[in-house]
C-alpha cells in the first residue's frame, strides 16, 4: 500500500544539486509530492526534505538511488511517528464583510495561526503544522473563498 514517506537528505550546497536529485526521480519514473531545500548548521551542506507516496520496495530503491548520487552525503527515511515535521501555508481569503472577518480571525486563533495581512477585501493567514492540520484548516475556511494559496511542502527533523 502506498503512503506518505518523508526522505531527509543532506546534500552538497552547490549549484545544480537540486536538479541532479529531482532529475533522478524523473528519470526513474518516481513522482515527488513535495521537496524543500534549505541550508543546515553547516554552510556547505543543505538539507532536502522530499515527500513521496510509495510502497516499501519503491522507497528502498529510491533511497539507494539517492545515496548513489555523488553530491548526496546522507539519506534518511524519517518515521513521522518519531519526527517533527511541519509545512507552512499562506492563505489569502476573501473578507469584505465584517462578520466573515471576525469569523476568520477566530478560526485562525483556534488553529494557532496568524493573520499576517489585512486589506479592504482580503485577509491573509499564515499557518504552520503537519500537512493534516493545514488540510483541516483549509477545509474549515474555504467557504469564505480562497483567493490565493501557497504551501511550502514538508520539512522535518527526527525527535531527540
Amino acid at each position: 500500500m502506498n503512503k506518505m514517506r518523508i526522505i531527509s537528505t543532506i546534500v552538497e550546497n552547490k549549484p545544480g544539486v537540486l536538479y541532479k536529485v529531482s532529475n533522478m526521480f524523473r528519470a526513474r519514473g518516481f513522482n515527488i509530492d513535495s521537496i524543500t531545500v534549505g541550508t543546515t548548521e553547516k554552510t556547505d551542506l543543505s538539507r532536502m526534505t522530499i515527500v513521496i507516496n510509495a510502497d516499501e520496495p519503491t522507497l528502498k530503491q529510491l533511497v539507494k538511488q539517492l545515496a548513489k548520487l555523488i553530491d548526496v552525503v546522507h539519506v534518511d527515511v524519517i518515521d513521522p511517528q518519531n519526527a517533527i515535521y511541519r509545512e507552512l501555508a499562506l492563505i489569502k481569503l476573501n473578507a469584505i464583510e465584517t462578520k466573515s472577518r471576525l469569523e476568520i480571525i477566530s478560526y485562525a486563533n483556534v488553529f494557532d495561526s496568524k493573520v499576517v495581512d489585512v486589506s479592504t477585501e482580503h485577509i491573509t493567514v499564515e499557518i504552520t503544522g503537519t500537512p493534516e492540520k493545514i488540510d483541516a484548516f483549509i477545509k474549515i475556511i474555504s467557504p469564505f473563498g480562497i483567493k490565493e494559496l501557497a504551501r511550502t511542502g514538508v520539512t522535518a527533523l527526527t525527535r531527540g
Partner: protein
Amino acid sequence: MSGAKALIKALKREKVEVIFGLPGGAIMRVYDELYDADIRHILVRHEQSAAHMADGYARVSRRAGVCMTTSGPGATNLVTGLATAYMDSSPIVAITGQVPTSMIGKDAFQETDIIGISTPITKYNMQPRDPSEIPLTVKKAFYIATTGRPGPVLIDLPKDVQDKTADMVFPDSVKIRGYNPDVQPDPSAIAKAADMLLSAERPMIMSGGGVIIANAFQELQAVAEFLQAPVVTTFKGKGSFPENHPLSLGPVGMHGHPEANKLITEADVLLAVASRFSDRSVGRFDDFIATGIKIIHADIDPSEIEKNLPVHIPIIGDVKVILTELLKVLIKKAIKKDRTKWLERVEEVKQQFRNRQDLGSKEITAPKILKKLRELLPIDTIVTTEVGQNQMWASLHFDVIKPGTFFSSTGLGTMGFGFPAAIGAKVACPNVPVVDIAGDGSFGMTANSLATSVLEKIPVIVVILNNSVLGMVAQWQRMFYNRRMIAVDLHNVPDMVKLAEAYGAQGIRVQSMDEFSKAVRLALKSDVTTVIDVPISPEENVFPFVVPGSALKDMVLA
C-alpha cells in the same frame, strides 16, 4: 599557470597517454597546450566515435579512456557515446569546451547546457568556474570514473577558465564525502550464500559484465569448479567464463544459447555475480522468479539489489573480493555435494540443442562465418560487435575462450559502437588482433572512423555480415508485422569494398567460405585496416530468440 595548462598537467599526472578528440572554437586553448604535451591525440571524424574509442580503450585497458570535444554540437555529439558507457559501466573522462562564463545562459554561439544534458547519462559531471579548481576537478573525475561501479564523467570547461591563470595545487588524492566506493562485503552474507549454494540441488551461476570489469575470471572459475555449478553469462558477461569449459552454457537471454535459457529455469539456486538483471538477460521478471529460484546477488552497486527482482541473499562489494571470500568459506566447510544428477541433466539438454545445427553445406551463413572466424583468430584476439543480428549471431556462435576479450554495446544497444570501440581497443592493446563483427547498417553509422584508423595507423579488422538490410528490424517485421517490410532495405549501398578503399583501407569481398578464410588470414597479416564484406541472405533470421517482453521459457527456436 593557465587553466588549459593545468588541465594537461593534471591529465599527465593521471598517466593519460592518449586522447580521442576533435577540436573546435571553445577548446582551442587546451589543444594549443596539447601541442607541447607528451600525450597522443587521435583525431576522430565525429565526436560520437571519440567517446566509443575512449570506451573501447577503457574496457580493454581497465583504465579511464579520455575524449575531448568543443562546446555545443561537439558536446552533444558525445551524448550517445556517454550513454553507451554509462549503461555498460565503462570509465571514460570526457572533456568539453564551453562558452566563456560571462556568456553562459545567453544562448551564445555553440553554447549548450551539456551539464544538464549529460546529468542522467554520466556518473558525475563538473563545470569549474575558476582555473584554480581544475586540478581537483580532474583528480575527482578519474577517481569517480574508475572506482566502485565505473562510469563516464564529464568535465565542462568554459573558455575563459581555460585562458585565465591561477596558482595551482595538484592534489595526490581526493576524498568525497558523499562517495565511498570501497565497500567490504558482509562476511555473514557470504557465509549464508555458501550454505545456500552447498545445500542446492541444482545450483547455477550467472556471470555478468562486472566480472570482466573486476577482472575476477579466475575467482569465478574456481567457485564454479568447486560447486560443480554450470555457468551462464549475461550478454555483457559473455567471455567472463571460458566458453569451451565443460561447465559453460554460454550466454543466457535474448542473445542466449537455448540450453542456457532452458536450464536456468530448472535451477534451484542462482548465484548472480555482477549482473544487473537486465530484461535482455532474464526475460520477463515475473516469469523468471515464478520458477521459485532462490537468488544470491553479488554486486558492487547497492542500488542494483532488488531494482528489478527480489533476491534472497544480497552481497555488496567488489566481486573479486566476494568470490575470493566465498571460495575460502566453501573450502573451509569441506562439503562436496554430489552433483552427478544435475550435471547429467545439464549434459543432456546441452547435447539436445547443440546437435541441432547443420553447418555442412557450402552456402555462406552467418553462423558458419562466426564459427569459422573463431577457428581462424588467435585465442587472445579482442572482438567487438555492432548491434543487431550481427551481435546476436556473435553471441550465439562465436565462443570466447580467453576471458575478457569480447566487448559489445549491451546496455544501450548502440549501432556504430563496434568499429570505433575496436580502434580504441587496438590503441590499448596494439599487439593483438582486434576484430569488429559488424552489420552493414551499424557499420555505416561510424564508417567515417576508417579515416582515423588509416591515418593514425590503427589497423583493425571489420567483418561485415552484409545482408543489405537493417537485419534485426527486418526479422521483427517478418516475424511480428506480417512481412510488412518498411524502412529496412539498404540496397547494398555503399559498396563496402570501395568505401574501404576510398579511405585507404583494404577491402575484400568474399563469395565462399574458402575466400572468407583467405581474407581473414590476409587481414591478420595486414598493417592496414581491412574490411571483409560478406554478403549473406537478407532473409536470414537469428535463432533461437527470446522475444522482448516474454519469458525465457518462451524462446523461439526456429
